[in-house]
C-alpha cells in the first residue's frame, strides 16, 4: 500500500499524472497518437496482408512439409534469428526477439496470440540442395541482406549472370510464398479451418 502511494506520488512529481491520479492529457494524447500511427501502418498498402503472410509462413514452417514447389522442386522455409512483431490494438506496438530459435519460442507464440503479427523476419529457403537466406518485411516484401547460394561459374561475366539469375530466383521464391498464401487466404477454409488452427498453435504454449 505504502509502495503504491509512493509510486503515485513519484508519477505526480514527474508530471505524468494529475492530483486525481489520472493520466495527464498530453500523456493520453501521446498514447493515442502512437495507436493511430500503428493502425495507419497496418492499413497502409494492406501491410496487414504481409504480416498475416509472414505469420502464416512461420506456423507452416514448423512442419517439415514443403511450403510450395518451385520448378518442380519442393521449397522448405525456416525462420532463424531476429524476428519483429507488430500490432495496432494493444498496449505493445512492437516486440523484438533475438536468438536462433526465437521465432518458434513460447514467448513469441504468446505475443502472436495477443494480437501482434510478424512484421520482419530472417528466413531461409531451401530448394533442393541450395539455400537462400533473406530478411523480409511485411510492408514492402523487399529482399534485404540476402545470401545467395554459392556461385558455380568461374568467369567474371558468367558469375555476374549467375548472380542476377539467382537474385531473380529469390524474387520468384518470395512470389511463390505470396501466391501460395493468397490461394489459402482467399479460400473458404481460411476462416473455417486455417485461422482456428493457427490460433490454436499460437495458444498452445499460453
Amino acid at each position: 500500500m505504502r509502495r503504491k502511494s509512493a509510486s503515485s506520488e513519484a508519477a505526480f512529481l514527474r508530471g505524468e499524472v494529475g492530483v486525481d491520479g489520472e493520466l495527464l492529457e498530453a500523456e493520453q494524447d501521446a498514447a493515442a497518437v502512437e495507436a493511430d500511427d500503428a493502425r495507419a501502418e497496418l492499413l497502409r498498402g494492406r501491410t496487414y496482408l504481409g504480416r498475416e503472410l509472414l505469420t502464416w509462413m512461420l506456423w507452416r514452417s514448423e512442419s517439415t512439409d514443403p511450403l510450395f514447389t518451385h520448378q518442380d522442386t519442393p521449397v522448405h522455409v525456416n525462420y532463424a534469428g531476429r524476428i519483429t512483431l507488430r500490432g495496432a490494438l494493444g498496449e505493445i506496438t512492437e516486440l523484438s526477439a533475438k536468438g536462433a530459435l526465437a521465432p518458434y519460442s513460447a514467448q513469441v507464440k504468446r505475443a502472436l496470440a495477443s494480437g501482434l503479427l510478424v512484421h520482419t523476419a530472417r528466413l531461409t529457403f531451401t530448394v533442393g540442395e541450395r539455400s537462400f537466406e533473406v530478411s523480409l518485411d511485411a510492408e514492402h516484401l523487399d529482399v534485404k541482406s540476402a545470401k545467395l547460394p554459392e556461385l558455380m561459374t568461374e568467369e567474371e561475366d558468367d558469375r555476374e549472370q549467375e548472380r542476377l539469375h539467382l537474385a531473380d530466383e529469390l524474387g520468384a521464391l518470395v512470389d511463390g510464398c505470396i501466391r501460395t498464401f493468397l490461394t489459402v487466404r482467399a479460400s473458404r477454409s481460411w476462416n473455417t479451418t486455417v485461422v482456428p488452427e493457427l490460433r490454436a498453435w499460437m495458444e498452445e504454449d499460453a
Partner: protein
Amino acid sequence: MPLTRGAVTFSRFRVRPGAKELPSDLPRSLGRALRARAFEPLDRTGDEERAAGFVELEAEDGVEFASGSVFRGDHALFAYRVDTLKVPSSQLQAELKKWLEAFEAENDRPPTRGEKSRAKTELRDMLRKRVEPSVRIHEVSWNLKTHELSIWSSNRRAVEEVALAIESLYELSLEPRVPAALALEAGIAEDALGPTPELIGGAAGAEEATHAA
C-alpha cells in the same frame, strides 16, 4: 557494386505499360531514354545542392548507354546517381567567425547586416568549390523477358525516387511485388482480403469474430 558482389538488398517491381505501350524495340530505345534523363554533374558556381540522373552501371560518370554497357542476357543494367553538395554549417560558421574578427580589427566597428550577409554568401560560394559532393549510386536491373525490375538499395526514399525516375522513362508503371498487387494479378476480389480479426485483434478479436459468425 551490390549487384555484383556481397549481400543482396533490393526492392522488386513488375513493369506495366502506362498510357502508352512499351516500345517494341526496347533494347535499342532504352539507351536513348536513359540518355535523355542522364546524370548531369552539379555546377559548383551555381546554387543547386542536388543533382540526380541515370548513369552506366560500370562507370559512375558514363552516360553513353551503348547497348554493350547496358544489356547482359535478358537484363538491362544501369544505375541512378544522386550527388548532394552541401556546405557544412559548422564550417561556414567557423569561416564567418574568422571574417568577423578580421573585419572588426580592420574597421574598428562591427559589420552592418548587409555586409555580413554579403560576406556569408561569398564564403558559402568559396566553400562550395572546396567541398566534395556526396555520391550515392542506386543500381537497377530490369529483366526484359519477365518484366521484373529490381532497385538495389536499402534506402526506401531512394527506392521511391528511382522508381519515379524509371516510370518517367516511358510513362510506365512500377508495381511493387506485395500481396495486394499479386492478389489483383490473380483476380482475387479486394473485399475477400480484409484484415482477419482473429489474428489482428488477438483473443478479443477471435471472440468478436465468433460472435459475429
